[in-house]
């Protein structure tokens, strides 16, 4: 990214619509079509559309996932990418692990040792906050207030809160999650999609 690029290198082009590798399942397409009817414009459907994509793309909104949502909602890629990168619950940085452990570090949790818990997680998993273990099982994140101060220090895994937690609880939690094949990040995305849908629209 310097003057050199300007002089020599080829600029990458955004994929043309026919170059996209669309990955939405029939179920996802049906859900998106149902959600479209909830809003006056397709633009308004970007947020739930991204949740469907986050589920379909294993919890990671890759450029391809963003492009697919944009394509299906007839928006520009840039616009959808702007939305996806704005909200922190969409994962656009890199492919997260199967389970995302989010550590609340706001005031109450902080007072009750949230950073001790975070340090313990980092040491135990060998990765820093915001990173994913090499085996692709865990991603740990620092998040703002989870609105569960009564359970401080609290963790969020998928759509479950765990807390108050101690080091021993974390050992047990990690062991349990390691043996779970289902992905908490996909499960979280799915549960958010289901919340958006009307009962009649949910796949039975």
């Amino acid at each position: 990214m310097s003057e050199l690029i300007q002089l020599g290198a080829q600029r990458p082009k955004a994929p043309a619509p026919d170059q996209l590798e669309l990955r939405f399942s029939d179920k996802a397409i049906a859900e998106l079509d149902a959600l479209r009817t909830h809003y006056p414009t397709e633009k308004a459907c970007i947020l739930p559309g991204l949740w469907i994509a986050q589920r379909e793309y294993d919890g990671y909104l890759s450029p391809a996932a963003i492009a697919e949502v944009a394509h299906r909602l007839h928006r520009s890629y840039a616009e959808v990418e702007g939305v996806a990168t704005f909200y922190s619950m969409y994962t656009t940085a890199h492919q997260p692990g199967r389970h995302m452990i989010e550590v609340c570090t706001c005031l109450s949790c902080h007072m009750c040792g949230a950073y001790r818990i975070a340090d313990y997680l980092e040491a135990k998993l060998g990765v820093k906050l915001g990173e994913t273990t090499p085996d692709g099982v865990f991603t740990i994140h620092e998040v703002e207030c989870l609105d569960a101060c009564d359970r401080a220090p609290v963790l969020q895994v998928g759509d479950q809160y765990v807390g108050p937690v101690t080091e021993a609880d974390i050992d047990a939690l990690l062991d349990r999650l390691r043996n779970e094949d289902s992905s908490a990040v996909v499960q979280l995305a799915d549960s958010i999609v289901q919340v958006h849908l009307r009962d009649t629209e949910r796949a039975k």
Partner: protein
Amino acid sequence: MAAAVQTETVAITINDIELHVPKGELIVESVKRLGLEIPIFCYHPRMKPVGMCRMCLVEVGFKQPDGSVRKMPKPQAGCTLPASEGMVVYTDTEMVHRDRKGVLEFLLINHPLDCPICDRGGECPLQNNTLAYGPSTSRFLEVKRHLPKAYPLSEYVTLDLERCIQCGRCVRFTEEISGDSQLAFRFRGASMQPSTFQLTDFESRFSGNVIEICPVGALTSSKYRFRARPWDLETRPGLCTLTPCGTNVFYDYRSGRLVRINGRTNEDVNEEWTSDTTKFGHDALYNNPNRIQVPHVREGEAFRAVEWSEAYAAVLGACEGKRTAVLAGTMLSNEDYYAWQALARTALATNHLDLRWQKTLLPASQMLKARTGLPGVQYGIADLENALAILVFGTNLAADQPMSYLRTRKAWFRNGARVVVAHHEASEAESFAHVVLRYRPGTAAELAAGLANLLAPELADATRIATPEWTEAQTGVPADRLREAAEALRGTEFAAITTHGLFDEANGVTAYQTLALLTSHAGGKFNGLVNHANEQGGREMGFAPDLGPGGEAVTAGMNTAEILQAAAKGEIDTLILVGCDPIRDFPDTALATQALENVANLVLVDSAQTEACAYASAILPMALPAERDGTYTSSERRVQRMERILKAPGESKAPWQIAMELGLRAGSSAPYFHARDVMDAIAEQVPAYAGARYQDIPETGVRLANPEGLTRSNDAVVQALQSLLGGR
């Protein structure tokens, strides 16, 4: 179209001065009525306000019943504050000054202040506002944010993220004006950055505008980068001669060399926007390293530089008593076309002259005017804005008529106009179309007949067969969608727009004329525009094989294709090319090459060396549009004047001057000393320009009105339709 609208006004007070403004007017606009100014970054009068930069903070209060003013505790952003009754605004208080200082201190925290190497330095709103309103020092001692510098977003636009103050003007431009939504803000907070999807190529036909509206040096022109300091530039108003729209621009030049083109405001034409063709296309033209400096005459294999007089003698010698033809490019001025057609028809005694470079070249008897009595241009670009419905037919509007495209989009974006787009391939206009009619290539005429069947009962006899179902079978456009399109247009005085590019499709002429006729019957207005810079002007000046100045009938000569065919067979002795290269401009390159090979004398009047030079017997250097005075008629028939901006290289002369001097030597031309003298002759000869005087053309140009009382005749088109539809 719209009756005078009664606007409700409200009484507000700005800096203790009472005034009445329209209700809901933004305060940032209201203060301008007093000649005051509020500093701004993100606000742009042509885009929706967002209140992102907080530069326009003002103190606001409301009059209380007892006459006192109760101020709001916090300052308000003037760009998002609509005027309401009793509002009291202060733009010049201690608090406002402190606020402005604060906002600027914040904006400058992460701004790299690399003004000495920034293209914007010297014409930068951030510099100007800091000078006028900012703090003299910063309290920020920490390390500034570092981000990619000089990232090439496209061939034309270079992005410097460090300089960005996140005003969102560029993002809103692509969303609201050009409509491609290529730019968006990625990430948020301090890391927010305007960019394309994954920093891929910024593909837009209007990307150059974001460079001009960027209030800092974050978006700079890749072509202009580091080429000049703004205070070294000289600037003069001019016109774009690359697109048919007549876009108003500024030519910025340094030491006589063109360095950049900027948009110039003309509310009737381009507002303030330019297409990329306009903004970046002129550089290659004016700064062509192969400009011809002096006249040349062929001597064996080589060329010899000669005096003009010798060159003229050579040209006239080659023309005298010979079969001669003249072809012109589309970038000449009205005066050039007029002088050259006069020369061709008198001294050169030929009617073989043409400036059209399409495949399909209609004889005058087949043209819209002759066959239906309808003029081809019935409204101006600005009229599109007020249309309730617009039918874009058979053209990629953004490419062919960029300014008409922006107005069409504006009509949809601002006023909710219904736009029907009919074309055989995808185009930008589809993104905001109410109905898209994608027909199979070559079936435009059938689709036009189908629309006529639904919209023009007077044409029912001719189009009886063209029911929506039949049209679906012929064109592939679903019958229901056709009906939907007709519903969108019915009773709206819609504006139909197409271009002469449609002629090149199968039965395109019939489609074009049917469209004109059905639009007229349905109470709409029709524009069938030319696709090249001053093609419209050239035709009106009589630079056509079968139409004289003002459209009078003359003995028909050969058109472009016929001239080239004749030349290829050796039936033309002398071919004069004025500002064109058939090998480059004519669709059939093989024929063009063969023609140039077989012409005994090829006289070239051009600004730069082209492929045709290899076959030339004489080359005369021509000044480009910005290097001479002249008037130009855009596709909407607006006559605009461009005075000389740059010095023509070497001994180059204006084409009209070359024609005049040749005519003088042949004893047939009046001496013209200036383009205005040619204009006087045009005013005498061309009815539409009657009374026009060169120096009286206003800065915004004059749109030529259509003569009133034109009668409409269906016969010829109905006949063509019947033979087309009957043949099925």
